[in-house]
C-alpha cells in the first residue's frame, strides 16, 4: 500500500517536471533558456518516472534496465544540448564577425 502511494507520488512529480519543461520550451524567450528547460526539467521528470516504475515493478533486473534507460537518455540529451548550444554560439560569433568586418 505504502509502496503504491510512493509510486503514484513519484509519477505525479515526474509528470509535473515534464509539464514544467514543456512549458519552458514553449514560453522561454531564447534558445539557451529553452534548452535549459528541455534538458534539465525533462530529465528530472524522467528520473522520477523511472524511479516510480522501478518501484512498481520491484524486480532488480527491471530496475537496472530502467535505470540504464534514464542514464542513456541523460547522456544523449546533455550531449545534444551541448552541441546545439555550441552551434548557436558559433553562428552568433560568425554573424558578429561579419557585421564587424
Amino acid at each position, binding site marked *: 500500500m505504502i509502496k503504491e502511494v510512493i509510486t503514484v507520488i513519484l509519477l505525479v512529480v515526474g509528470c509535473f517536471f515534464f509539464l514544467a519543461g514543456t512549458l519552458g520550451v514553449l514560453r522561454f524567450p531564447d534558445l539557451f533558456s529553452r534548452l535549459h528547460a528541455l534538458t534539465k526539467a525533462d530529465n528530472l521528470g524522467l528520473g522520477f518516472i523511472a524511479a516510480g516504475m522501478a518501484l512498481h515493478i520491484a524486480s532488480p533486473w527491471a530496475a537496472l534496465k530502467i535505470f540504464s534507460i534514464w542514464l542513456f537518455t541523460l547522456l544523449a540529451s546533455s550531449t545534444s544540448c551541448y*552541441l546545439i548550444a555550441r552551434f548557436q554560439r558559433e553562428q552568433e560569433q560568425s554573424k558578429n564577425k561579419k557585421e564587424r568586418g
Partner: protein
Amino acid sequence: MSVLIDSILAILAVYLALQCLLAPRLTQTVFIFFAFGLALALAWVRLGAVDVAITEAAIASGFLGVLFLDALRDFSFTAPNKRENLEAVHDPLSRNDTKSLLLPRLALWLGLGLFLLIALEAVWKIPDGGGLTAAAEALLPESGVEHPVTAVLLNFRAYDTWLEIGVILLGLLAIFAVGGIKLYRKPGVAADDPLLRQVILFFTPVLFLFGAFLLYFGKTGPGGAFQAAVLWGAIGILLHLGGRPVFSVIPRWLGQLLLTVGLVFFLVLGFLLMAGGGALFEYPPAHAGVLILIVETLAAISIAAALTAIFANLNQMKKEEPNEIESTN
C-alpha cells in the same frame, strides 16, 4: 479508460499528420514528423506490436528523421526566409500554374472527402477474417524460434524478408545512380570537440552491445535483425558525424562485402538447402534456430552497412559544393 487513451492517441496521430503537412516552415514539418513517428510507435505498443514499435521508432522515425534533418541544412534551414507558400497549394504531381486553380483544388478536396467516407465505411464494415494466428501458433515449434514474429519474418515468409534486404541494398544503389556522390572520400578531420569524441567513444560499444542483445533476444521476444541493424547503423552514422567515415577507412572490397554479405548468404544458404532436396529457404527443423541466427546476424550487418552508407552519401549532397568527382563506383 483504455478507449479514452486510444482515442487521444488516435486524434494526436491525425493532428500531427495534418500539422506536419500544413506547417508553414520546413523545420517544423520535420520536427513534427519525429513526433508523428513517436505517436505511431505508441499506437503500435497499444496494439501489442512491440516489434513494429521498435522498427517504427528506429527506422521510420529515427533513421528517416535523421535523413530529413540532415536535408534541412540544405533546404530551408540555411535560408529561413524561404517560406513555403501555403496559398498556392495543389500541384497534381505535374507542372502547373499556381493561379486560377480554385476549381481543381475544390474538386480534389471534395474527391478526397468522398474517398475518406468510403474508406471509413470500408474499414468499419470489415468482416472478421480470423487472421493466421492459429496457423502460426500451430507451426511455431517447427520454426526453430520461439517468438512468432521472428518465425514469420525469418522462416514462414523468409522470401519476403530476403527481398526486403535486397530492397535496402537497392535503395543504396539507387542513391548512387542519382550521381554526384563520392563515397570513398578521404577520412575527414576527427571531431575537434573533446566532449563529442568521448561521447562517441562511449556510445559505440554500448550501441553495439545493445544491438547484439536485440538480435539475440529476437529469438524469444521482440527484437531481431532489423532493430539490431538500426542500432549498428547508428554507430556508423555517429562515427561519420564525428569525422571518421567508416567506408573510407576500410578497404573497398571489405565495404562491398559488408553491404552484400547478408543478402548473398541468405540466398546461397537457400540454394544449398534446395540442392539438398528441399525448397528455397526450407530450414531443417533441427537446425533452424542456428541457421536463422546466422542469417539474422549477417543480414543485420549488411543492413547496418547500407544504412550507414545511405546516410553518408546523403550527408555529402550539399548545395554549396556541386559535384567535383563523379561516383567512383
